């Protein structure tokens, strides 16, 4: 399993697409995106926020915003850990990403909003109709003031956009035996 010691609260977890029709559909839609950034990361189909202790907060179909173990993903799917790490952003603000994410537990997930966002790239997030990347983008902006969807090439945010976003840095993943 991953060595969590290098992970920080507020890290963004990107999950490789699932090996089913939905996973392939998400990958295909991102691969067809007008955004080169989203196309570059199209293999990722899910985004979550690391809150420490091997747990993430994410928005998922049928569940909404919830807290779960990252192990639910990484035992069968590839993951990527990315971080907003810039000297201009206070460490406390980045840690607040984790705190603020947990405050939205129980909010709904919307397939419709996810589809609308793909059809109309200028769509602004609707809190009543979240999908995984919307949650990540709104919480990061709330905690740090950084709008990851600022550039038109990053609108709307998709998992693939976050996977290749130039303002995020990669955290090297180390693995250890169970």
């Amino acid at each position, binding site marked *: 399993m991953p060595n969590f010691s290098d992970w920080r609260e507020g890290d963004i977890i990107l999950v490789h697409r699932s090996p089913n029709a939905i996973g392939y559909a998400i990958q295909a839609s991102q691969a067809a995106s007008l955004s080169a950034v989203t196309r570059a990361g199209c293999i990722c189909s899910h985004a979550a926020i690391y809150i420490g202790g091997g747990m993430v907060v994410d928005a998922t179909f049928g569940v909404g915003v919830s807290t779960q173990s990252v192990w639910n993903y990484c035992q069968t799917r590839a*993951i*990527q850990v990315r971080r907003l790490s810039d000297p201009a952003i206070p460490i406390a603000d980045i840690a607040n990403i984790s705190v603020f994410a947990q405050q939205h537990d129980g909010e709904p997930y919307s397939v419709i909003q996810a589809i609308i966002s793909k059809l109309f790239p200028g769509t602004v*997030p609707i809190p009543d109709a979240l999908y995984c990347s919307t949650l990540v983008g709104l919480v990061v*902006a709330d905690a740090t*003031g950084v709008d990851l969807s600022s550039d*038109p090439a990053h609108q709307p945010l998709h998992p693939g956009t976050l996977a290749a976003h130039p303002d*995020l840095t990669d955290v090297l993943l180390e693995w250890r035996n169970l």
Partner: protein
Amino acid sequence: MAEPPMYLQTNYAFSVNSRREQTGSEDAGETRRVSTVVVALIPEYHQVKVRDGDGHLYALTRKTQGVDLAALHEGQQVVCTVTRKLPRVLTATAVV
């Protein structure tokens, strides 16, 4: 001998962006002023989304100085001071 499950064979760490964490300093103080329009009020996340003429989105948050988020409405013009490198609004002024 039977092969182990695929997830045990492969190190799943991967990257689609080679940029690594930076440790150096940067021009954090470099800012510019942009004219924007309010396009969404998102009180649940304590922010207001504004868009400039080039299509860039910015988030006015509870930390943004100079503006009362609760007093803004869609379509309202707001002048923002934003950082160049990371899209953060430092100060904002609503145009009456």
